[in-house]
């Protein structure tokens, strides 16, 4: 979008409502930037220009007729291409899905964004079938990190993060099974929200691992994350995992601050295998929140292991027919993991599911001693594109399976997490997970707002 136009979702909606700018003007500017700049980023796989301009014209017409526009009127957004978009095949980052018939309807969360006046600009790049932390894709090319295009955007919602960080859209939707919102948020310097498991319906999105799949928003500021999240809330009978909670709006409570909140730092596992910068980012966040209280999280390594097994088994089962018929059309980076997952003994998967309740008890006990927990999002900042290994705890280890070591234990038991960008004395940002008890997204975002106010997410602010 043009720098002279409002940039955030909140500002755009206000400007469109007031008539200071039209939704068509905002949409054209966003489409023009995507057309000229996305070749070097790789965020979009489909741009729905005609639809976007038609919907924007509808918003403008409604304004001319008078009355109050909905809260996201004229706000451009994109969605990870595992969301159904009416008229397009739902790619989920794959070559194989290009043969699917076009979706008949938008996914439920797109419908909710559209009903709130937001303008869909298209589908966004992602790691194949969401089995990815890098944002690389053998079929569609990588999502490059707008902060440094030689680096990974992170995955698997790489295009979602890249589109927001590049300024193409103020908000985007992604999915997070093991960290796919929190990892790209960290690498690209963005705010994101992985809500509680079962909070937002996944109806009309291509699954990966039903036990662990979550959907959620990305934005460049906390207010926009909250605005978007409030729009997305509500039950849906077609997603068996959706808990059908009433809408619990967080936008009105963002400014309540953190006074009285017991905030702790996750110790043990969450400090063992991280680069110094990742730990420094957590220290900086803790300092800003005036806490040094550390709480160990026992069995986090086992929680990560169990999440790995559940993902491997369920994901491979989901794709078993495609693996049998079209195995040579898979991205080699996912293929071999899916094959291995299709062969796991059932007892490994069932033990992992049983351990889920046990670890949930562990986390529930921890949250009797604190209200919010801080942990690094990733052990490193954005790696170089094509990088295969990383140093972890003094060892040279495979990059891909280790990017998510700090996000996997948390999503394993469905806890809500706000992803908050934090700069330390390095060119690239890190991410901090702000973790709360189930259904307390309000606490995650209040703390995120406090960290944003302390300007930790702005480059050049580290001491």
């Amino acid at each position, binding site marked *: 979008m043009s720098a002279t136009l409002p940039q955030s979702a909140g500002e755009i909606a206000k400007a469109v409502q007031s008539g200071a700018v039209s939704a068509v003007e905002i949409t054209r500017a966003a489409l023009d930037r995507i057309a000229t700049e996305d070749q070097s980023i790789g965020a979009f796989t489909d741009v729905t220009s005609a639809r976007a301009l038609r919907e924007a014209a509808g918003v403008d017409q409604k304004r001319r007729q008078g009355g109050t526009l909905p809260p996201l009127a004229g706000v451009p957004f994109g969605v990870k291409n595992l969301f159904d978009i009416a008229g397009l095949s739902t790619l989920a980052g794959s070559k194989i899905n290009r043969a699917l018939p076009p979706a008949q309807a938008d996914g439920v969360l797109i419908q909710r964004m559209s009903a709130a006046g937001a303008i869909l600009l298209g589908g966004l790049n992602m790691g194949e079938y969401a089995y990815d932390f890098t944002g690389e894709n053998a079929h569609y090319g990588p999502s490059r990190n707008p902060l440094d295009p030689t680096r990974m955007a992170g995955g698997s919602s790489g295009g979602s993060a890249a589109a927001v960080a590049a300024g193409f859209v103020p908000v985007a939707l992604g999915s997070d099974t093991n960290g796919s919102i929190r990892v790209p948020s960290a690498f690209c310097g963005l705010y994101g929200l992985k809500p509680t498991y079962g909070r937002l319906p996944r109806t009309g999105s291509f699954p990966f691992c039903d036990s662990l799949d979550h959907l959620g928003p990305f934005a460049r500021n906390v207010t926009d994350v909250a605005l978007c999240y409030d729009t997305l809330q509500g039950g849906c009978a077609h997603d068996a995992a959706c808990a059908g909670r009433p809408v619990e709006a967080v936008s009105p409570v963002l400014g309540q601050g953190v006074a009285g909140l017991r905030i702790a730092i996750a110790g043990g596992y969450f400090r063992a295998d991280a680069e110094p910068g990742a730990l420094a980012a957590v220290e900086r966040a803790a300092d800003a929140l005036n806490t040094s209280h550390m709480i160990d999280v026992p069995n986090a390594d*086992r929680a990560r292991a169990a999440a790995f097994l559940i993902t*491997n088994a369920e994901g491979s089962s989901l794709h078993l027919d495609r693996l*049998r018929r079209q195995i040579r059309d898979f991205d080699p980076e996912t293929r071999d993991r899916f*094959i291995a997952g299709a062969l796991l003994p059932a007892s490994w998967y069932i033990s992992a599911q049983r351990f889920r309740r046990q670890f949930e008890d562990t986390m529930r006990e921890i949250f009797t001693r604190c209200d919010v927990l801080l942990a690094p999002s990733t052990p490193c900042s954005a790696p170089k594109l094509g990088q295969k290994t990383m140093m972890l705890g003094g060892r040279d280890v495979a990059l891909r399976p280790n990017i998510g070591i700090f996000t996997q234990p948390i999503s394993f038991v469905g806890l809500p997490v706000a992803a908050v960008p934090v700069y330390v004395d390095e060119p690239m940002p890190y991410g901090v997970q702000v973790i709360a008890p189930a259904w307390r997204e309000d606490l995650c975002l209040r703390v995120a707002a406090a960290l944003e106010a302390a300007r930790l997410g702005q480059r050049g602010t580290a001491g």
Partner: protein
Amino acid sequence: MTTDDTDAYIEAAARIQGLEVDPAWKPNVARFFDVARSMAKLVEDTGALTDAEGAPVFTPRGGA
């Protein structure tokens, strides 16, 4: 199990599942399978899992 066991298991199980495993892919598949095996050992070592409730709960919906 040893790596030889892993290779033999993959070969047999892949055949039963109807999956092609190109010889060029086998080392990588075995590596991922061994990672999963080490993860399973970690989880099983927690013990007392016989008392734990499995996380998935099926609730019959009744009436059509």
